[in-house]
C-alpha cells in the first residue's frame, strides 16, 4: 500500500511508468461536468450582462428589487464570466490536457470532484446569491464576499495538487509551453488573488489602490491570459498536426508575460495620487507587454502557416484563430491606452468597457470556446453539430464586433463631452443611442452561445475521434517528428538540467518585484506623505457614515461614480482639487473606481442639500430627467421624504465625501469677488501650476451669490426673442422641468420631497440680473444647482423662456400711494432685518440665511404669490408666516409695497 506522500511524488509508480508506453487516464467525466457548468454559467452571466446593459436604456426596469439592481447584477455578470464560465472552461481543459502534456494522470478523481463542487457550489452559486442578497464587495474582479474568496483560494490550492503535481512528477525539461502556462497561471493566481481581496481591507485608500491595481490587472494577466494562451498553443498544433512555429519564442513570450504583466497594474490609476514613478513604471511595462504579445501572436499565427485550409474548415480552430487576433488587438489597445496622452482622454469612458469586452469575449471566450469544441470532438460518445457550431461562431463574432465598435465610439463621445464645460448629464444623453445598440449587440452573442451549447448536444454521435481524420493528413513535419529525427534526445548536465526551475524561480522573483515596485515602495511613500499632509484633527467616518459606505459598496455605486479627482484640467474644472493621498486615510477598502457613468463624488460635501440627495436616491429621474442611475426604493418607506435607516446612512456617507479636505483649510478659497467667468475658470484649471491649491469645491458648482456673474439679457428683437423662448423651452424641459414642473409652476415630480419647494416661476417677474445670478450660482440652501456650465446662449434662452412664463399684471394705481406708505413703514419694521431697508435682500440677518432673503428689486411676485407667502411663509426658508401678526389690510399694504420695488429689466447691453 502506498502512502499519500509516495502518491504525490510519484514513487508509487514504477521507475518506467513514463516510458512503459501506457497512457495516463483522462477523466472525461470531469471534463464533461466542467463543460456543462461552464456553458450554464456562461448563459446566466450573459443574461446578467444584457440586463445590466438594458438598464442604461430603461433604468427602472426591474428596479424595485434590490437583488436585481444594476450594481448587484454588474457584480454577478463579471464574476459569473470570470469564475463560472472561464473558470469551468479552463478546468475542463486542464482535465483534458494535463495528462497528455505531463504524461501523468491527474492526482485524484475524487479530488477532482471535490474541486468541481467547491468551484461551483462554494464559489459561483453562493457568490451570486450573496451578491444578490447585498453582501458583495466593491473590489474589481473580487466582488464575491470574503467568505467566498476563501473557497477560491482553497480551489487554487486543490488545483496545485491536481494539475501542477503531475507536471512536477514528469520530466520538466521536456515540458510543452501549454504546461508552463497552466503551472504559472495556477500558482501566480493563487498568490495574487488574496491581494485583491484582503489587502484593501488592511491598507486604506491610495495605498490600497496600489494593491488593487495589481489584482485588477493580474486577474486578466495571470488567470485569463495564461490559460487562454495555453489552449491556443494546444489546439493549433493538435488540429493542424504540425508543430508550432517556435517553442523558443513561445517560452520567451511565456516568461516575458509573467515578468511584465504584474508590473502593469498601476496603469489603471494614471494621474492619481499614487506616486508618479509607479505610474510611469506601469506605463513602460504596458508598452513592453504589447511587444511581448506581438511576439506570442506572431508565433501562433506562424504556426498556422500552410494550414489555412484546416483553419477555414475546422470551426474550433477558427474560434481559436479569432481569439488570437483579438488578443493582439486588445493587447496593443491596452498598451496604447495606458499612455498618458491617451489615458487622460479615454479613461473612465465606455472605450475601456469595449476594451474589456474585447478581452473577455474576443480573446478569452473565443479561445475557450475553441478549446471546448476541440476537446468535445475527441471525447468518445459525444455529439457534435458542425453546422450550428459554425452559426454560433458568426453570431458571436458579429455581435462582438458591433459591441466593441459601438462602445469604442461611445467612449470617444463621452470623452469629448467631458473635456468641454457641458453639464455631466449631456454626456449621458450623448451616448444613449450607443447604449441601446450595445444592448442589442448582446442578443446575437447570447444566441451564439446558446447555439454553441446546442451544437454539443445535437448532431451525430462521435464514435471515432475527429482528430483521427485530420491526423491522416500527414505533413513533412509530422513525418519528421514521428520518426524522431526532428526531436533528438538532448541531455543536459549540471545546472542547465534545472534551467526551468531556475526560470520559474525568476518568475516568482518578478512576481515579488511587482509587489515591491508597484505596491510596497509607493505604499511606503504614500504613508509618509499622508503623515505629513493629513491634519491632526482629521475625523474618521461616523458609525452611520461607515454603514452607508458599506451599502454604497454593496450596491455598486463605485462602479459608476469615482471618488478620485485626477490631476487633469478637465477633472479639476469639473470636480475641484485633485484627490490627495491623505484624504483617503480612512478608506477601507478604497473606492476610487475605474469608470464614470455618473460624476465623481469626492467633493460632494456641502454641495447639494439633504432633500435633493434623498429624492435623487429614491428616484434619480425626479430631479435629473435623463439620468440612468437606478432607483433605490428599498432604502425608503414609500416616499423620498421617508428614508429608512439605511437610506440615512447612505446619505450621511455621500455628504461626508470631501469633508476632510474642505474642513482642513489647506486649500485657498477664492473670494467671491475674484470668481471669473467660465472662460477664465477654464484657463485657471488648464494651468494648475498657476495656482498651487485649486479650490476644493468644484468651480462649476460653487454656490453663493457672486457679483461677477455675467449679466445675460434676452434678445430685444421680437423675432429673436421668440426664437430664444422656443429654444429655452426645450432646455427647460430637459434640465428644469423635473423640479419646476413642465409649466414652471414649481410642481415637478421632485417638488413633493424638496424643501424649500422649487420656485413657481409663473408667480413672479424675475429680472435679467436675478435670473443670471441664479443660473450662474444656484440658490444656496435649496436644491437649485448652478448651471454655469451651460453656454451663454443657452442661459440667455432659459432666461427668455422663464420670463415668458410670467403674465404681466397692472401696475399699482396712483390712488394706492397711501397703501404704499403704510407698506413701507411695515416693511421697515418687520421685514428689513432680513430683506434690508430698501428691500435688496441685504438686511443684517441676511448673511446667515440660506436661501438668502429675496431682493425685491430683482424679483416681482404676483399679488397672489406675495399674499400666499405672507399668509403661510416659505417652508424650508427663514421666511415665517405673518398671518397672525399682521392684519389683512397690513398684509395687503406690504404686498403692494414689495411689488412696487421691482426695477424694470435693463436694456440689452449686448451681452
Amino acid at each position, binding site marked *: 500500500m502506498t502512502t499519500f506522500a509516495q502518491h504525490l511524488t510519484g514513487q508509487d509508480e514504477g521507475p518506467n511508468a513514463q516510458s512503459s508506453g501506457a497512457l495516463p487516464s483522462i477523466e472525461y*467525466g470531469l471534463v464533461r461536468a466542467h463543460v456543462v457548468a461552464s456553458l450554464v454559467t456562461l448563459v446566466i452571466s450573459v443574461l446578467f450582462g444584457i440586463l445590466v446593459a438594458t438598464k442604461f436604456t430603461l433604468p427602472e426596469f426591474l428596479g424595485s428589487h434590490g437583488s436585481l439592481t444594476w450594481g448587484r447584477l454588474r457584480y454577478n455578470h463579471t464574476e459569473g464570466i470570470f469564475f463560472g464560465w472561464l473558470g469551468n472552461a479552463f478546468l475542463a481543459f486542464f482535465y483534458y490536457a494535463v495528462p497528455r502534456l505531463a504524461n501523468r494522470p491527474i492526482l485524484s478523481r475524487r479530488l477532482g470532484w471535490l474541486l468541481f463542487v467547491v468551484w461551483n457550489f462554494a464559489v459561483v452559486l453562493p457568490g451570486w446569491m450573496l451578491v444578490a442578497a447585498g453582501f458583495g464587495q466593491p473590489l474589481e474582479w473580487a466582488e464575491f464576499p470574503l467568505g467566498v474568496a476563501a473557497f477560491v483560494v482553497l480551489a487554487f490550492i486543490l488545483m496545485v495538487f491536481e494539475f501542477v503535481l503531475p507536471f512536477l512528477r514528469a520530466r520538466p525539461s521536456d515540458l510543452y509551453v501549454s504546461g508552463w502556462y497552466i503551472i504559472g497561471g495556477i500558482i501566480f493566481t493563487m498568490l495574487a488573488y488574496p491581494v485583491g481581496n484582503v489587502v484593501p481591507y488592511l491598507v486604506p485608500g491610495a495605498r490600497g489602490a496600489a494593491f488593487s491595481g495589481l489584482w485588477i490587472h493580474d486577474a486578466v494577466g495571470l488567470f485569463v491570459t495564461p490559460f487562454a494562451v495555453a489552449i491556443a498553443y494546444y489546439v493549433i498544433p493538435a488540429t493542424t498536426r504540425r508543430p508550432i512555429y517556435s517553442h523558443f519564442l513561445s517560452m520567451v513570450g511565456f516568461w516575458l508575460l509573467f515578468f511584465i504583466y504584474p508590473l502593469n497594474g498601476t496603469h489603471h490609476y494614471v494621474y492619481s495620487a499614487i506616486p508618479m514613478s509607479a505610474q510611469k513604471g506601469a506605463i513602460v511595462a504596458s508598452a513592453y507587454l504589447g511587444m511581448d504579445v506581438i511576439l506570442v501572436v506572431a508565433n501562433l499565427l506562424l504556426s498556422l502557416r500552410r494550414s489555412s485550409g484546416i483553419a477555414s474548415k475546422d470551426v474550433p480552430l477558427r474560434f481559436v484563430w479569432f481569439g488570437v487576433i483579438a488578443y493582439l488587438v486588445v493587447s496593443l489597445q491596452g498598451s496604447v491606452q495606458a499612455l498618458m496622452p491617451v489615458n487622460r482622454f479615454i479613461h473612465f469612458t465606455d472605450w475601456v468597457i469595449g476594451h474589456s469586452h474585447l478581452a473577455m469575449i474576443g480573446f478569452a471566450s473565443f479561445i475557450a470556446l475553441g478549446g471546448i469544441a476541440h476537446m468535445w470532438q475527441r471525447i468518445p460518445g459525444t455529439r457534435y453539430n458542425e453546422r450550428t457550431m459554425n452559426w454560433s461562431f458568426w453570431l458571436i463574432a458579429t455581435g462582438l464586433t458591433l459591441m466593441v465598435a459601438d462602445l469604442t465610439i461611445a467612449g470617444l463621445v463621452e470623452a469629448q463631452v467631458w473635456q468641454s464645460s457641458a453639464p455631466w448629464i449631456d454626456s449621458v444623453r450623448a451616448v444613449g443611442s450607443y447604449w441601446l445598440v450595445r444592448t442589442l449587440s448582446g442578443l446575437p452573442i447570447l444566441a451564439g452561445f446558446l447555439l454553441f451549447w446546442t451544437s454539443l448536444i445535437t448532431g451525430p454521435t462521435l464514435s471515432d475521434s475527429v482528430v483521427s481524420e485530420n491526423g491522416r493528413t500527414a505533413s513533412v513535419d509530422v513525418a519528421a517528428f514521428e520518426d524522431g529525427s526532428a526531436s533528438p534526445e538532448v541531455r543536459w548536465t549540471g545546472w542547465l538540467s534545472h534551467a526551468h526551475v531556475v526560470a520559474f524561480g525568476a518568475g516568482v522573483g518578478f512576481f515579488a518585484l511587482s509587489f515591491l515596485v508597484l505596491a510596497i515602495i509607493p505604499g511606503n511613500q504614500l504613508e509618509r506623505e499622508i503623515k505629513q499632509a493629513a491634519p491632526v484633527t482629521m475625523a474618521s467616518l461616523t458609525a452611520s457614515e461607515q454603514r452607508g459606505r458599506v451599502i454604497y459598496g454593496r450596491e455598486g455605486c463605485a462602479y459608476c461614480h469615482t471618488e478620485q479627482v485626477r490631476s487633469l484640467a478637465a477633472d479639476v474644472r469639473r470636480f475641484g482639487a485633485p484627490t490627495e493621498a491623505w484624504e483617503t486615510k480612512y478608506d477601507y477598502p478604497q473606492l476610487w473606481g475605474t469608470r464614470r457613468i455618473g460624476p465623481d463624488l469626492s467633493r460632494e460635501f456641502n454641495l447639494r442639500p439633504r432633500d435633493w440627495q434623498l429624492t435623487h436616491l429614491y428616484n434619480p429621474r425626479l430631479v435629473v430627467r435623463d439620468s440612468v442611475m437606478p432607483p433605490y426604493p428599498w432604502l425608503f418607506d414609500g416616499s423620498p421624504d421617508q428614508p429608512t435607516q439605511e437610506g440615512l446612512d447612505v446619505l450621511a456617507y455621500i455628504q461626508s465625501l470631501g469633508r476632510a479636505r474642505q474642513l482642513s483649510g489647506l486649500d485657498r478659497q477664492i473670494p467671491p469677488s475674484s470668481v471669473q467667468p467660465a472662460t477664465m475658470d477654464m484657463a485657471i484649471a488648464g494651468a494648475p501650476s498657476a495656482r498651487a491649491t485649486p479650490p476644493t469645491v468644484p468651480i462649476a458648482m460653487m454656490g453663493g451669490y457672486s457679483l461677477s456673474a455675467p449679466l445675460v439679457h434676452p434678445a430685444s428683437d421680437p423675432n429673436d426673442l421668440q426664437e430664444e423662448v422656443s429654444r429655452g423651452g426645450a432646455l427647460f424641459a430637459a434640465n428644469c422641468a423635473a423640479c419646476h414642473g413642465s409649466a414652471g409652476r414649481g410642481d415637478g415630480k421632485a417638488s413633493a420631497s424638496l424643501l424649500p419647494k422649487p420656485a413657481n416661476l409663473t408667480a413672479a417677474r424675475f429680472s435679467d440680473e436675478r435670473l443670471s445670478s441664479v443660473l450662474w450660482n444656484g440658490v444656496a440652501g435649496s436644491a437649485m444647482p448652478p448651471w454655469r456650465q451651460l453656454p451663454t446662449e443657452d442661459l440667455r434662452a432659459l432666461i427668455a423662456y422663464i420670463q415668458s412664463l410670467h403674465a404681466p399684471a397692472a401696475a399699482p394705481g396712483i390712488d394706492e400711494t397711501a397703501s404704499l406708505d403704510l407698506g413701507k413703514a411695515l416693511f421697515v419694521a418687520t421685514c428689513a432685518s432680513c430683506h434690508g431697508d430698501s428691500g435688496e435682500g441685504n438686511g443684517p440677518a441676511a448673511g446667515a440665511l440660506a436661501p438668502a432673503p429675496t431682493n425685491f428689486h430683482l424679483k416681482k411676485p404676483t399679488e397672489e404669490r406675495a399674499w400666499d407667502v405672507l399668509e403661510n411663509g416659505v417652508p424650508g426658508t427663514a421666511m415665517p408666516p405673518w398671518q397672525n401678526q399682521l392684519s389683512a389690510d397690513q398684509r395687503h399694504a406690504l404686498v403692494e409695497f414689495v411689488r412696487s420695488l421691482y426695477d424694470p429689466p435693463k436694456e440689452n447691453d449686448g451681452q
Partner: protein
Amino acid sequence: MINLIVILASAIMFALLLVWWRWPVFRVWIEAPKYSMLRQERRFDDQEREPVTNLSPMASRRSSP
C-alpha cells in the same frame, strides 16, 4: 523604476537571444517539446480509435488498462 524595468526586460531578452544564437544545441533542446507534444497527441488519438466500452455520460473513461 522605469530604468529598472527597461534594463531587466532588455537584459533577459538579450541573454535569451545570445544563448539561442551562440549555442545550437540549446535550439534543439528548446524546440524538442513541440515535437513530443504532437507525438503524445498521436498516441492518444491512436488509443481513442480503439473500441469504447463505457459511454455513460458522466463516467470516466480509463484509457490505461
